[in-house]
């Protein structure tokens, strides 16, 4: 009934708007609002355009698909032979992302289950504020923590010469993406209708059974989206990874070896490469790869979340 009334109100409103002529000032302001609405589309296209624009000469001339994606040699400043192969960087990015997610996803989802299902409302508020604070710690501070805290810890515990390596970066990334995974995961669990829980409880299910047999399947896509958003975060993280990975271009053979990621390479080298030069354009080409990777991850996460709502 209420729905009908609000529809009627909206319809009569539309009708009145069409009938009466709006003053020009109102039209202008509404035009500005409409333009503002388009801003995000314009910006995302502009980002793509400018990255393409700066990397275009490189992609057209020097770009060799096979070398770019399958060579581990990244020697932009070499005197002998300049090579642009991002395989080692790509592997570095994927390694730290995967390892950090192996740590963060199970823990984060367990945490989301606890906060959403087992926690008292008071503790939930406290945890939520803590999550916000954790999410607010900037990446450069995480990088600093990686150097000053995790680095000596790894050296002491595992008895290795350097603590700035893949493991360090993965730990930092896991800590960084936890708040996001927990809060999105918790949202997904909260979105499961209360009646599901009540029905299960009425049949004598314990909370454990409700969590694993009812909530997990019901919130599956939302939880997967939480994990994917964590992946997106880890993939694109720059400063913390730049400071934690140890910065050497190679495919690491163990998690105790240093490596380098796509993002860190851009951050480290863009300042030194002359503007408009080949190296500079190659770095923009890496940016393009990153843009596409994050695009795919984000679209999939959105698809999963939408799928849940249908």
């Amino acid at each position, binding site marked *: 009934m209420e729905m009908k009334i609000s529809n009627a109100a909206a319809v009569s409103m539309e009708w009145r708007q069409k009938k009466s002529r709006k003053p020009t000032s109102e039209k202008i302001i509404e035009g500005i609002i409409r*333009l503002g*609405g388009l801003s995000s589309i314009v910006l995302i296209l502009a980002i793509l355009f*400018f*990255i393409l624009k700066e990397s275009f000469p490189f992609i057209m001339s020097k770009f060799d698909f096979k070398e770019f994606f399958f060579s581990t040699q990244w020697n932009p400043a070499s005197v002998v032979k300049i090579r642009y192969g991002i395989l080692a960087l790509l592997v570095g990015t994927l390694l730290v992302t995967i390892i950090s997610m192996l740590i963060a996803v199970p823990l984060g989802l367990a945490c989301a289950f606890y906060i959403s299902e087992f926690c008292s409302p008071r503790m939930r508020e406290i*945890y939520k504020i803590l999550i916000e*604070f954790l999410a607010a710690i900037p990446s450069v501070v995480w990088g600093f923590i990686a150097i000053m805290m995790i680095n000596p810890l790894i050296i002491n515990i595992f008895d290795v010469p350097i603590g700035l390596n893949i493991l360090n970066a993965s730990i930092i990334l896991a800590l960084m993406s936890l708040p996001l995974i927990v809060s999105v995961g918790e949202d997904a669990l909260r979105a499961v209708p209360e009646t599901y829980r009540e029905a299960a409880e009425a049949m004598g299910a314990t909370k454990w059974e409700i969590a694993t047999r009812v909530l997990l399947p019901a919130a599956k896509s939302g939880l997967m989206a939480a994990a994917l958003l964590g992946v997106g975060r880890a993939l*694109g993280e*720059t400063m913390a990874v730049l400071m934690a990975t140890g910065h050497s271009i190679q495919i690491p053979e163990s998690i105790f070896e240093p490596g380098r990621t796509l*993002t860190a390479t851009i951050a480290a080298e863009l300042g030194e490469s002359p503007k408009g030069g080949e190296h500079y354009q190659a770095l923009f080409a890496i940016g393009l790869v990153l843009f596409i990777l994050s695009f795919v991850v*984000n679209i999939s996460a959105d698809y999963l979340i939408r799928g849940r709502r249908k």
Partner: protein
Amino acid sequence: MFRPSTFLIDKEIRQKKFANLLSTITFFLFLPALIIIFWLFIKGYPALSWSFLLDDPSSGMTKGGIFPTIVGTFWLVIISVIVSCPLGVLAAIYLSEYAPDNKMTRLIRLAILNLAGVPSIVHALFGLGAFVLFMNMGTSILAASFTLAVMNLPVIITSTLESLKAVPHSFREAAWNVGASKLQTIRYIVLPNSYPGILTGLVFSVGRSAGETAAILFTGVAFYLPFLPQSVFDQCMALSMHLFTISTQVVGVPESYPFATALVLIMLILSVNSVAVVLRTYFRTKRKW
């Protein structure tokens, strides 16, 4: 007498164990955060003083204070918020009050989502290509702030949209029924009722931009400048960048310096965020619907 069967008791015990396990995991996930902040505080506290906050760095950044970096961060954050706030609020008003349910709106939502997910270093590349080079701003405060503004836009849109949607539909209907136009309704009914939410979102985005490093790296921030910025076309130093510089690029910095810098940065962000949290709680209790 009626007693639960052993099967049910087992179940009960298992459930308790499960709940305990989860609570332990959660507790230990948040423990590191608290330890880290505590530890930064202990290590950085000795170097904190008024002269550390108010002096210029000297002797190749191994002595002196961090005053110019605080000034720079302040400039960057203020200008970026001035740029992104109107744009973000307009976009949110469009999405909440005007946008029809069609493909275009779906595209806009996707664009916002992706804008929020683009890695910060890609934003830096964009800022370099678009603001520094194409618009000829040079590496300047203006270019860096614009880059930050683009990064913040999706955050501001999302938080504003949420607070606009929280205004009950009946408020709008009441306004329409007394003859207010759509725009008047937005101006006099919807916006005043959602100011608190919009404000909270803005304060959160201030905290976010204060800590951002990668996006301003090539667009307007210098490692070291002997003078304060005179206009928005100058470069500046920034707190976050300074922390990166003295902890990785400069040798011979006394150990407490980077700790103190990190502490100042974290305290700055946490206090800004606390303001947002307090604002939110305050307005939530005051809300009339």
